[in-house]
């Protein structure tokens, strides 16, 4: 699919450009940056559901671990260790540790899945320096004129149309 990109080398200029685009209602589809810029999330309303999912995994892991422990230690084989109760506080430690393990592994897998990241994957889009010092703003081609004028006005060093694999 064809897209228009504007490339900045200065993040202050980038932020000015983004502000202007938001102001003039130019839809910003993506900004590719070499590092996290938290202000952009706020300005372009970017959210993720990873934290919510992680909480859900945590709850599931707690229920799963507790059921497993309860089944093995209370129902299936209630071992008598000096008359101590089978359902004991020991569970707390195991619940915590196994919950952490499950949540961490699943969160990482979720991140890889949502971003479609896997070993040997070819990056879908490359612009020289986009992981070093270039900030690439991607907009649809149908707002070309408006976007181009904002790009050149706010100091983008390169403006061009490119082909992006979806």
């Amino acid at each position, binding site marked *: 699919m064809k897209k228009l990109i504007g490339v900045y080398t200065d*993040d202050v200029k980038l*932020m000015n450009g983004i502000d202007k685009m938001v102001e003039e209602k130019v839809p910003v589809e*993506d*900004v*590719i*940056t*070499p*590092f*996290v*810029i*938290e*202000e*952009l*999330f*706020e*300005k*372009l309303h*970017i959210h*993720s559901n*990873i*934290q919510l999912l*992680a909480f859900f995994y945590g709850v599931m892991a707690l229920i799963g671990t507790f059921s*497993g422990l309860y089944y*093995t*230690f209370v129902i*299936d*084989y209630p*071992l008598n260790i000096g008359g*101590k109760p089978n359902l*004991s506080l020991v569970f707390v*430690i*195991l619940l*915590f*540790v*196994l919950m*952490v*393990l499950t*949540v*961490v592994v699943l*969160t*990482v897998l*979720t*991140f*890889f899945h*949502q*971003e*479609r*990241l*896997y*070993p*040997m*994957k070819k*990056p*879908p889009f*490359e612009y020289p*320096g*986009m*992981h*070093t*010092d270039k900030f690439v703003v991607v907009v649809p081609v149908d707002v070309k004129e408006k976007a181009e004028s904002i790009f050149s006005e706010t100091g983008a060093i390169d403006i061009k149309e490119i082909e992006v694999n979806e």
Partner: protein
Amino acid sequence: MYKKSVRGELILGNKSYTQITEDVLRHQESEPKWYSAPKWWWISFIVFFILMAVGLGYYVPRTIVKGIGEWGNNNQTAWGWAIINFVWWIGIGHAGTAFSIFLLVLRQKWRTSINRAAEAMTIFAVMAAGLFPAIHVGRPWDEFFIFPYGPNTRGLWVNWNSPLLWDVLAITTYLTTSFLFWYIGMLPDFATIRERSTGIKKKIFSALSFGFVGHLKTWRRFEDAVIIIGGLAAPLVISVHSIVSTDFSVSVLPGWHETIFPPFFVVGAIFSGFAMVLTLMIIIRKVYKLHEYVTDDHLDAIARIIIFVSLIMGSAYVIELFIAWYSSNTYEKYVFIDNYMFGDYAVPYWLMFIFNALIPQLFWFKKIRRNLVWLFVISIIINIGMWLERYNIVIPPTAQDFLPANWSEYSPTVVDIWIYLGTIGLFGVGTLLFMRFLPIMAMNELKQQAKRQTELNVEVDVYDIFEKKLVK
């Protein structure tokens, strides 16, 4: 909130984003071939490799074939060097979490240039640690017994009440979590290296970077995933070392049977972890000339934390002595007063006390905190002191316990010593390979840091994570 006027700048020399990338990757990009490296690198690599090859390549298989009888362990001291070294390495392995994750959760910006190396250290230290219990069981081929997979095969489930089982689960979780945190954090930097390299190197880093591109959405999810893993790993570090301490404290042995053990072990772990980070960062800063990233202020901050932790260690030692006396229990009093303070084990005990509780107090002096040689020497002293602490915990209470007729001396054999040297070799080889081939600093975080520094001079909106909105 980070105050430049109080703490100074975190990255010196007004670096541009390109300069940061070039500085961090300079030592890799200036080497034409994969096997070319400076002379010091090759010499240390060969030394560590020989230690690893002999220790892990010869003495570990020999222990497995011939049995634990080859070690210095005896009826009294059944745990010996293996467990001293296990606890020591686990303690060092807490550096990554302590540094990277505690400081991440607490939003301490000065972690940025140090966290990557600390995390790498964690992985190698935990690998070295895990080896000891694995071979100490004597019959490693039966280790699958620890995993619950149905009672019909063995007639019984595992004993969930045993701290040794918790230990296996906790350390496996810790290693997995640390590794994933480290790897995820490196994805953007792998992408940077992918972009800047050609040929086979590009292929390798393409594979390692998983096709990472810094899309807006990707960064958002990346941030969220990292904070979740970090947030969970921070309490994990406390539980891991508390569990290691329960291996000791649930026994009825005087000197081990103490309620102070869990916090005492956790603090000790953070102490030795920070000391090892200091040792390593001084070396990295020196050999790669990265003093603009690991500034005097960074080392100063680590030294200040060490003073604080050292004070906790000192008070823990004193509390142990006081409680032993106050309890009026003959056996407790024997271990702490007759044995540690004035008995056969007085030398390692007092050395430990001086190394861990007194010498780090020199960091109260600014001149010492800002002197690389002093910092380096004291960091090594703390590492030795922490090894002695584990020696004092493991050996004296077991060698001289309830019945004097049973007392026996403990001394390690050549096999014990070589396996320990082998793990030092493993740690050294791992760290050197990391320094040569992987991004030693988190470039993407450094750039974020550099951006923040500029923002302090330019009037722009800043996202406040606590208020969750943009502020002027």
